[in-house]
């Protein structure tokens, strides 16, 4: 049983767990066009999905290693080369499948939550 003081920390953990599974989907959905890490973060944050840098950059690496993203370095400013990521053909397929899955889960959860309220 968590105390009143411990509750915020518990809630933070639960929200983190809830969001974690959706992050890959969110990232894949935004990389139809090449984006570098920071611009992607801004883009996601603007749509209400703020991902900490410590999560986003490793996630991009992981998705690339899994073959769902492709990346390339572009040097516009010599002092600040940027790595641009975009979705790969395999990533597009995964995005389609994950979207379907997400919608099914979302519908089921909505139904459960609505039923709970009644």
């Amino acid at each position, binding site marked *: 049983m968590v105390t009143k003081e411990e509750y915020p*920390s518990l809630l933070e953990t639960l929200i983190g767990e809830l969001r974690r599974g959706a992050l890959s989907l969110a990232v894949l959905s935004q990389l139809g066009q090449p984006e570098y890490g920071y611009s992607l973060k801004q883009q996601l944050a603007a749509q209400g999905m703020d991902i*900490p840098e410590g999560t986003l*950059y490793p996630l991009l690496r992981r998705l690339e*290693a899994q073959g769902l993203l492709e990346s390339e370095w572009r040097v516009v400013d010599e002092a600040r080369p940027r790595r641009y990521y975009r979705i790969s053909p395999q990533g597009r397929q995964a995005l389609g499948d994950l979207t379907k899955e997400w919608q099914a889960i979302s519908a089921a959860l909505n139904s459960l939550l609505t039923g709970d309220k009644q």
Partner: protein
Amino acid sequence: MKETLIDRYVQAVGRRLPGKTRADVQLELRTALLDAAEQRGLNPAAEHDQAGIITLLKEYGRPEAMAASYGVGHSLIHPQVMPAYRRVLAISGGLITLIHLVGLMLVIGNTGFDFTVGDVIANYIKVILMSFGAITIVFAVIDRTLPDLQIEEPEWDPATLPALLPQADRLDYADTVAELITQVALVGVFTSLPWDITLPGGPSWALIHDVLTRLTALLPWFIALSAADVIIQTAKLFQGRWTRFTRWATVLQSLAAVGLLGYVTGQIIRILQPAPGMTACSPALPGPCWWSSSLRSALPPTSCASCCSPSPHRRRPSACPRWGNSRLCKAKKHSFQGVLFVRPKA
């Protein structure tokens, strides 16, 4: 160019990453931090913007946590408890060393030095490994069985990040770890080798036996050199950089290794030197003749200790008048061996 906190942060993250991805991740992280600073209107090099840069770095989190988030696998020790884990390892390592030294002095004082250096080092390494292993298991168990454990950590201050290292002082972690593992393995091999190697009797084994005897006599030095390298590599890993101590220690250790290698080579050359007044032949060894001064004591030079089988492919040396005279050996009830000892013709 002025060293900035962002550079120091990127360096601190990089030193915890595997060499394969380090440069790539560091470059990307640096660009991201510079972008974020720019977005907030901060100049990383400006003195008056340091508070803002510190806030930004705190949002990114401790370097060890950031580096751990790039980890491909699950770490045994969670980054959150890593500082405590390292502290406990350092303290226990120091205590074990101290206890060992005191114990060693007491034993020597009471009973004298009636053990080998290899035994002492082997025992020390065994105790260190067992202790570190036990500590690691305890930390891993704590981490897994108490997932909600809230470890109070002092607030991280990016201003305490270590300064940028000159290129020459930067460690190659992969190389250092590889060398450490190799040297620990070598110490293990050296200390587990039998100190008294028993080979089959007979003159054909005498040369090998002689070489091995001389090499095993040098085993404590091999162990000491490897143990010294273990200490140097461990110090490098703990300090996270090359220091004056590790540089000098490496130079001395390398000189000692070269000296030992030279000594071993000298010993082998000495063994293979022709002995005055005698010659040894062996068809099993390359060349028509093989001499060894070290075997003088092993066999009486005038005896037909063994016989070489005559080989059409080998030159029959004039110095070996009894070459192939196996009948003589049989007559003297010597078993057939690969080395012939004879006194050369006057």
